[in-house]
């Protein structure tokens, strides 16, 4: 079946079987292997990509259903402003260990920054709950997202900062200490 869509800003056309899911299409037809496949049943979040700007799980979206639409993967967000900030924060806070869940975590993190700029620790954890890290390295990932939100709140004082209100004091102190270094 003929399929035409935009991937990372480029128009691509392929002849695919309807049963091919979007993640396999990206990885095997376009060799965009930054999108990882964990469970292939919509449980782990590793394969999260953007479809028309919104995060979706590419293992439970069939490629043919994306005809005429726009997909962005981790590879396409190299110079994305939020991603640049998130990458630096992930590195600073040791937000990845084996790295398998990282592409999905990054896409979800970007969505949190865009959609819930006033999220506190609890809300971030809730928003991240669809992405599983089998290294269980959630502390670093949550800290990285919090630091990006905090930096943005300071940079733009018009955004109301409620992220501190529901925080655990210990985490807050640790993060401040890291910032001061």
């Amino acid at each position: 079946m003929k399929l035409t869509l935009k991937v990372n800003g480029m128009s691509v056309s392929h002849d695919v079987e309807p049963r091919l899911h979007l993640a396999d299409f990206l990885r095997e037809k376009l060799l965009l292997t930054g999108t990882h496949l964990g469970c292939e049943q919509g449980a782990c979040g590793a394969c999260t990509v953007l479809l028309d700007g919104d995060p979706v799980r590419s293992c439970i979206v069939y490629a043919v259903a994306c005809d005429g639409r726009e997909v962005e993967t981790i590879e396409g967000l190299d110079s994305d402003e939020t991603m640049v900030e998130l990458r630096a924060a992930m590195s600073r806070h040791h937000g990845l260990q084996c790295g398998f869940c990282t592409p999905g975590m990054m896409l979800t993190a970007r969505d949190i920054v865009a959609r819930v700029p006033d999220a506190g620790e609890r809300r971030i954890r809730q928003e991240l709950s669809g992405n599983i890290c089998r290294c269980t390295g959630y502390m670093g990932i949550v800290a990285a997202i919090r630091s990006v939100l905090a930096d943005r709140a300071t940079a733009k004082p018009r955004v109301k900062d409620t992220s501190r209100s529901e925080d655990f004091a210990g985490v807050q102190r640790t993060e401040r200490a890291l910032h001061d270094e």
Partner: protein
Amino acid sequence: MKAAQFLYERPTSLPQALALLGAEEHVARVLAGGQSLAPMLNLRLSTPEMLVDVTRTQEMTRAEDERGAVVLGACVTHASIEDGRVPDPTHGIMRRVAAGIAYRAVRNRGTVGGSLAHADPAADWVVTLAALGAQVLVASARARRTLTISELVVGPFETSLAAGEMIEAIRIPKISRDARWGYCKIARKAGKFADAMAAILFDPQADIHRIVVGATESRPLVIEGSGEPMRRSDLARAAASGDEVAGADLLERAGLAGDAYFVHLHLVALKRALSEAKPQ
């Protein structure tokens, strides 16, 4: 973890979709957001010959504000409801419920009609729309009919939809401003299907007093009116006062089947929903 082969059609109108579903040559299933169906296809728990992708039919993505009700096309996504991109007949109730379904990446694809057609007894829309008294508009190439949620969902993952029929839209009655709502689901992990849930709508102005107990082993229990095998007020009183023995007994008489832990969990969900629905 790869789906078996299937044919794929993407009609652009409702009549086209219904014609494809009604055709005798292929066993066809409706594909909306695919957030329940695609995992089943990938696991080969479902192997239809053809998928009819209805997400690009104008009729099924519509949202209309009618007198006294809002009609949502079956393909309206949870995220659209959560973000308030479609009219809300419930003063924020539906937005809050939508925000609690699975995860954002799922809500961006998953649809209200797809959720009803999947008929998971622990699904948020099955329970919520039953409590809100929604009507399900069902269409086939030959006829149209309207069902209540209780008439649609006849068992776990089982609906009364016949071959060639599908959910076209859902009509949700507007509730009054001073209606009270309580909703509780108990789940082991954020975003997972609930182990127990309860929804309550008290709308004195419209004379609605409805309790729905979800995440049952069967269809959700809808308890309203005085003709029920047990009195709603007795159940509400027992659950609210923490009378475990009477509450469990009443829940079982209403049709909840399960072991003591299961019944207890549902009683806790009901108690929490009731305390939320209490007047300020």
